[in-house]
């Protein structure tokens, strides 16, 4: 099978696969103002997701208190994003990669140092004590 054919076939699988909400963990697994990582089933196969939890009382101006981004750091090619320091820079909540310290916006995954780099993001929310992501 050629690469193009492979890609076409995957596209078909992808389009057949509708996004589904999945329970990935519980609130007790999260670490306030920091990140953890989890596996998520996505259209493109299993993905490592970094989940950040910013309890709302301290995060004025943010729309959400939960964020889900790629755990994969494209600058070091290692799965480490959940282990970065969370903070805010010029008004946006960000995580700093623990390896080479680039900042990624939590809301949309945009890298602040390189406009061509953007992490994937997923919808995430609490359902009671459970944490759900749409993948």
């Amino acid at each position, binding site marked *: 099978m050629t690469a193009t054919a492979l890609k076409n076939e995957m596209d078909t699988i992808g389009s057949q696969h509708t996004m589904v909400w999945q329970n990935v963990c519980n609130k007790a697994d999260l670490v306030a103002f920091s990140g*953890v990582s989890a596996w998520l089933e996505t259209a493109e196969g299993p993905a490592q997701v970094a989940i950040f939890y910013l309890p709302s009382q301290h995060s004025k101006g943010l729309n959400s208190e939960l964020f889900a981004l790629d755990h994969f750091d494209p600058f070091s090619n*290692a799965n480490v994003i959940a282990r970065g320091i969370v903070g805010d*820079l010029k008004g946006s909540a960000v995580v700093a990669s623990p390896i080479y310290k680039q900042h990624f916006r939590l809301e949309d995954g945009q890298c602040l140092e390189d406009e061509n780099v953007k992490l994937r993001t997923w919808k995430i929310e609490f359902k009671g004590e459970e944490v759900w992501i749409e993948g």
Partner: protein
Amino acid sequence: MNITNHEQLIIIGNGMVGHHLVEQLVENGALERYQVTVFGEERHRAYDRVHLSEYFSGRDADSLALCEADYYDVSGVELRSAETVTQIDRTTHEVVTDQGRYPYDRIVLATGSYPFVPPIPGNDREGCLVYRTLDDLDAIRAAAETATNGVVVGGGLLGLEAANALRGLNLDTAVVEFASRLMPMQVDSEGGELLREKIEALGVQVLTERATQRIEDGEASRHRMVFQDDKVLETDLIVFSAGIRPRDQLARDCGLEIGERGGIVVDNQCHTSDPSILAIGEVALWNQSIFGLVAPGYQMAKTALSTLTGGDTHFSGADMSTKLKLLGVDVGSIGDAHGNQNPGARMFRYLDPIKQEYRKLVVSSDGKKLLGAMLVGNNGVYDTLLQYYANGIELPAEPASLILPQSSVTPALGPDALPETAMICSCHNVTKGDICATIESGAVDLAGVKIATKASTGCGGCTALLKSMVDHELEARGVEVDKSICEHFAHTRQGLYDIVRVEGIKTFTDLIGKHGNPDTHRLGCDICKPAVASILASCFNEPITDAAHIPLQDTNDTFMANMQKNGTYSVVPRIAGGEITPDKLIVLGEVAKKYSLYSKVTGGQRIDLFGARLEDLPDIWSELIAAGFETGHAYGKSLRTVKSCVGSTWCRYGVQDSVGMAIWLENRYKGLRAPHKIKFGVSGCTRECAEAQSKDIGIIATENGWNLYVCGNGGMRPRHAELFATDLNDEQLYRIIDRFLMFYVRTADRLQRTSVWRENLEGGLDYLKEVILEDSLDINDELERQMQTVVDTYQCEWADAISDPEKLKRFRSFVNDDRPDPSIIMTSERGQPRPAQSTSH
């Protein structure tokens, strides 16, 4: 641009001044007019001769070079190194070298000087050397390898510098001086006597009033020097440092006017007697004077630029005041230091035989102006005195107050008191007025002023003055010098430290709530969070993995291990002083095997196990802790290692138990969180096998106790530690270290090693000594108490973590799957695992 229209400019000599001229030509667009060729006899491109001695303390030719290797190419100037000019043919307008003939329109002679070797029979024997070039130093180093002792002939400035070098090469060293005292040019007999005492105390033998008659075969050593009274001195190596002579031979041969005692005569525009030929630097004789310092040479280079390009800058002489540290002894000399050029001058003298300090002022007969000054043992007031002298500022009613000990009030001359014309940087000719002008035209900080004026990029002597001048001028203009740590706090690290301590704030949330910038979110960032975490730890020493502190930590501190490039971690247990039992070695081996860890002995004398998976860390540490290990804090900005040599227990030269002391100190300070990491070394004798002088804290055993060195650094910008206190007993030693470290913790900026902190500390080492040794701020009790609190509250962070299931929950690669991260793939190299190229997602 048509090359053939260019005038041919030839610069002879690629030393400090010749190179400075090239820079001036390049920067000022003179290459539009001239095609420049530079001849240098030495094989190295121009280097920093002023810091030549650092070649013996770790710097190499490349780091001493005055420009990047491709500077000449890039600038379009032809540099012909290792090509000596042998003749100037003024009839054909050609410069002749050993390799060819080159036509010229203009010549600049910058041939410098050569060391004078007295005409003593035997002065050309093997092992009789001089001290001027890198090649000279290579020759000295080579000769020292087979020598046990060495003599420097000449006790002037350079002679003492050479003596220091010989001492550094482990030779028993003596200085032989013809005059009745050392540094006869700069100091009087009282100063000279003090200098002699200090230098002898360093183990350098000083022989004055000795004229060498001949040098012949020795019995015990290679040479024997015979003096005027038939006394003799045997030595393996001789370095002549009996003055310098201008290299004016080329000029003599082509008939230029030469001074009576040498030197090419130049006028105010640096013209020689042939207007197409200029001379600058140490070879030039201006107004009967040769200037043996680099700053006047640079001014001549600027004058030459102006002369060559039709400007009207004139050379008008230069101040020969100098401030030096020779063999660790401060010596300063300003203006008419001897007071013999100003009839009627009055002198004030201060001599402290215990601290071994001598200061002298030469004051005009009406007591109003400073004509000269001499300092031995402490240069603390040099900058102030120089400003009085250079700017003709009226002296205080009691001039003596300027040289009395610091405890009596001597107000330093503030930037305010200086006139616009005050010279701040003499290397680059920058006045207070120039600095103000750059600030007026937009420079907003020290870095900006430095770039615009080049101030303090030469010898560096003006650094402190420049900084206070810039700060003062900025403040005077209402520019707030922004020292905020980041956008979340309008405070410096030191400011935050004081707030935390005074208000007893124990969490980041409280701190940012009360003192954070209200315009930002309350999250903080990767700059302020770890800095505050470190401050909180220095003050209260709560476990860094407590819930309130966890979000502040870098990943290394969070997981108490160092993250490697593939997302795995390294494990570094403490091996205090580098001492380890066979049983513990076996445990390390077993653990490494069981968890497939790469093992390496580190540069810090311990063993690092690399490649641990996040979820394995707790098990690895449980096994290590069960075997008696504790965390090594390799991840923290905290005490790393106390490196030791084997010391008196085994070594035939050891005079104290360096291992015992290293272990004791490592255990005392382990866990201390600081602005940056801290390293110690303890050596059992002066051979210094533990390399203590490259550490933040260095300790070297003496017959009577310990010598303490501080603020050394290896790493990217190596710095030798400075001697801080001598012959301390055990208790004195750790008390001083307690205070020193706590003072550093309190006042340093984030991520500032002690070396950088020290270099930025106003008042320098003297100030540090006053605070730590003399308690000038009356804080020593408090500093000691604070350190004791840290020592008393120490707990192994890993032991704390493995006993707490909540904390252990963090050590999972995934919250919804126990399996490890499949993208971490190892391969094997030299029988051990190492990361393979990691795959994506």
